[in-house]
């Protein structure tokens, strides 16, 4: 399963990079979203014992008993944090890309190269 997941992760990163190498603002944003997906999925595979089926990290409320083979809760909490953070940042980038497009009057990133001119 890890092998399959690693391929999925690789594809997410590859797609992200390809999109970020394009000139369109929207592709750039989509690339960033995929990049975040890749990182989150990668973290997910890093849980204790890889990934586990049907064993959510929820314990018995009364006794606190833990079923054997329960999935790693820590990595899930970390990813949750990371997902929310990337959400905030994605929202900001969307707004920024919008404003940049508005100011430059083009959605071509190559038109946004003036600040580096010598």
């Amino acid at each position, binding site marked *: 399963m890890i092998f399959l997941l690693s391929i999925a992760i690789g594809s997410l990163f590859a797609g992200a990079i390809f999109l970020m190498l394009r000139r369109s603002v929207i592709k750039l944003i989509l690339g960033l979203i995929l990049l975040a997906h890749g990182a989150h999925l990668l973290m997910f595979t890093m849980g204790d014992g890889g990934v586990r*089926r*049907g064993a*959510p990290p*929820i314990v018995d409320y009364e006794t606190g008993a833990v079923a054997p083979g329960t999935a790693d809760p820590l990595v899930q909490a970390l990813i949750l944090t990371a997902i929310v953070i990337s959400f905030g940042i994605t929202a900001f980038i969307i707004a920024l890309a919008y404003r940049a497009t508005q100011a430059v009057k083009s959605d071509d990133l190559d038109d946004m190269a003036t600040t580096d001119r010598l």
Partner: protein
Amino acid sequence: MSPLFEMLMNGLLALTAISLAMTTGRLLLGPSIPDRAMAFDLVMIHTVALIALYAIIVDQNLLVDAVLVVAVLGFLGTVALARYIEKGGN
């Protein structure tokens, strides 16, 4: 849970997965944006169904509430898409 039931349910899950893949085919092919949007709606419905079936297999009632949220979001996403297809011009 009897082994036969588990096997059958696994089979159903597999079928649903195939169905999901077919839906994705439309999402890939398009050709128009509303086609893709419609496919997306159906993807979300498949997601709901997959989760529901999976909840039976792993015997987890707790996933049922997840289904609720997924359903809401599927609707929201589709509506947003449809709205902006109209607004933004295809």
